[in-house]
């Protein structure tokens, strides 16, 4: 699961959850890949990304070094910033661990890079 995906994931499908965002991460295994850099795509995603949630996630993974704490002005033309955003959004992958609902504490296990978002019958 890439951090881009984590940034858009919520637990709001569960009963009794209002916002369910952002999900906490406890990671047992992480992988860093090399992914082709697409500045246009990253630029557009930055508009949608919740930057504080991204920083928090990177911190949970212990990879916080190097990630700017806020989006800079005129980021579309700032290749260095875009490259850093790309690295964190697309190249860091959680392989094993848990995602945690901030309101109920319910854990969603991540196995082999795939988060299990299936809810039990009594939870929906």
């Amino acid at each position, binding site marked *: *699961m*890439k951090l*881009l*995906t984590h*940034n*858009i*994931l*919520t*637990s*709001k*499908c569960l009963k009794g959850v209002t916002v*369910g*965002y952002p999900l906490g991460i406890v990671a047992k295994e992480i992988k860093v890949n090399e992914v082709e850099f*697409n500045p*246009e*795509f990253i630029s*557009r*995603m930055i508009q*949608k990304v*919740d930057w504080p949630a991204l920083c928090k996630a990177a911190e949970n993974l212990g990879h916080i070094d190097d990630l700017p704490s806020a989006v800079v002005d005129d980021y579309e033309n700032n290749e260095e910033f875009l490259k850093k955003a790309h690295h964190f959004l*697309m190249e860091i992958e959680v392989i094993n661990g848990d995602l945690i609902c901030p309101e109920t504490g319910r854990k969603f296990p991540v196995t*082999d*890079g*795939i*988060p*299990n*978002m*299936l*809810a039990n*019958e009594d939870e*929906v």
Partner: protein
Amino acid sequence: MSGRPEHQAPPEIFYGEDEARKYTRNTRMMEIQLVMSERAVELLCLPENQPCHIIDLGCGSGLSGETLTEQGHVWTGVDISSAMLGVAKEREVEGDLLLGDLGQGLPFRAGAFDGAISISALQWLCNADQKSHNPAKRLYIFFSSLYSCLNRGSRAVFQFYPENSSQVELITSQAMKAGFTGGLVVDYPNSTKAKKFFLCLMTGGQQPLPAALGVDSREDAPNCVAFSQKRDRMKQLRAGKAPKKSRDWILEKKERRRRQGKETREDSKFTGRKRQSHVW
């Protein structure tokens, strides 16, 4: 193998390890999925030359996702079968994968995606696989969560196999209730084999539906895959009758002669026996 898969078992059981492998190794299946995925992306009407963030609903082993990657998009896939997702992981597809039940709703933030595709998955949502399931409610939860996680102005295209018109009615009504506009595009409506249903849903208010393929009767339905043509021809050869000159054929012919009242030799153990070929 009879009838519709969704009548045999819920999807996470039907698509177990064996079926998942078979599905993804079947070249005919792969080719059909590829063609349908390309058509679905075409119907999405995404802005040209722009990489988009797409959700693949019922992504299975990633066959349709690969089309998205090929066209330069970044995608996330959701499926209920861990066996199918396992195959996708083995095939090292680019998209992020999630194990989830579409009928429980999509767990994403508002406006997360620029579009959605779904190939051969929607019909599975119409069955109640558990006692507590209410298909209409599940469809509504699915469509309303999809509506919210799509960017305003983006579309969702579903290729699916409706069982009957009331199923189409059920699906469309829940989608409209959730706020979508749009409708059904039926490609090659006059061909039993090539006919394909695409539900095209829009979030940006009422817009004209894209044109269907093969509606102009002069246009030939594509014979999509060479395999199926050959299989048909084989079936047409002496359908229901014994192959020529075999013992069974000889016995049938003799019966016919008897019924016609013609003089016929008695059947014996020597009837239609293999003769040694002579060299004259």
